[in-house]
């Protein structure tokens, strides 16, 4: 008898049936895996954030229609049918969640980290956002409003973090290197 896990066997069973029906191409699956393992990740979102910090027209366009504004980048990866970018500012902090499953702007950030999918984060960030953010190291004063964006239906959110103090004079590439995945989810500040 095989000592493979039940999940591995079920996955192979599905893949073999789909191949027989001509519905799936093994190499196409390899390619999807390689894409998310190697090429699609938060560096894409970071480029967009850095440009928004340096180009006011782009920033306006990005906040008005995220999907359209980032289309020229032709990022690989999906889940970008309706990208909404929300801007942090003094007195306003945005944070993103998918309360029901794991929706996330793949093409901008890659696949979500484990904690983003975790039941604890998904329920608690809505119920007690300040406390959860504090656990992530984001201490908000009482005067700062917190907005929690739930990625329901087709909308995927991305946080535009505040540009860090002391970054004057840096070019877009140097600025992009300062931008983290967690800041674009809203659980970190820069």
């Amino acid at each position, binding site marked *: *008898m*095989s000592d493979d*896990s039940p999940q591995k066997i*079920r*996955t192979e069973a*599905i893949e073999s049936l*789909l191949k027989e029906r001509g519905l799936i191409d*093994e190499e196409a699956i390899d390619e999807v895996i390689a894409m*998310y393992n190697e090429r699609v990740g938060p560096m894409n979102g970071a480029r967009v954030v850095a440009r928004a910090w340096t180009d006011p027209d782009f920033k306006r366009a990005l906040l008005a229609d995220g999907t359209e504004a980032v289309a020229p980048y032709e990022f690989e990866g999906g889940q970008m049918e309706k990208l909404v970018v929300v801007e942090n500012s003094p007195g306003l902090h945005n944070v993103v969640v998918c309360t029901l499953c794991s929706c996330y702007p793949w093409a901008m950030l890659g696949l979500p980290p484990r904690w983003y999918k975790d039941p604890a984060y998904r329920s608690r960030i809505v119920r007690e956002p300040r406390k959860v953010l504090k656990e992530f190291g984001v201490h908000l004063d009482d005067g700062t409003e917190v907005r929690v964006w739930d990625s329901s239906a087709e909308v995927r959110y991305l946080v535009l973090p505040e540009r860090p103090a002391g970054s004057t004079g840096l070019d877009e590439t140097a600025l992009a290197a300062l931008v983290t995945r967690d800041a674009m989810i809203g659980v970190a500040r820069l």
Partner: protein
Amino acid sequence: MVNGEVTFDEPWQGRVFGMAHELARAGVFAWDDFRAELIARIAAWEAAHPDGHDYPYYDCFLEALERSLIVADVVDVKGLAERVAALARRPHDHDHHHDHRHDHD
């Protein structure tokens, strides 16, 4: 690793993700329908595990893929069960006999 952590803990997780991705792209099912199945599987797991520990996200993902294919009439429950049983009967060292996919298994 572009994400700062390993994307898939086990190779089968990458393959179920890749299959769902490609099947939705090809229109075998709509991503929204798959998402609805995923939400249902996650909700069922959470209802049965109120403490939320050891959340098996990709197990839910795999179940959602199976359900989506059954609902789309692409595979049937009996055919899938038979294929699973046949694969489970393979000898231990089956991987050593095959092919260019070895790295992914």
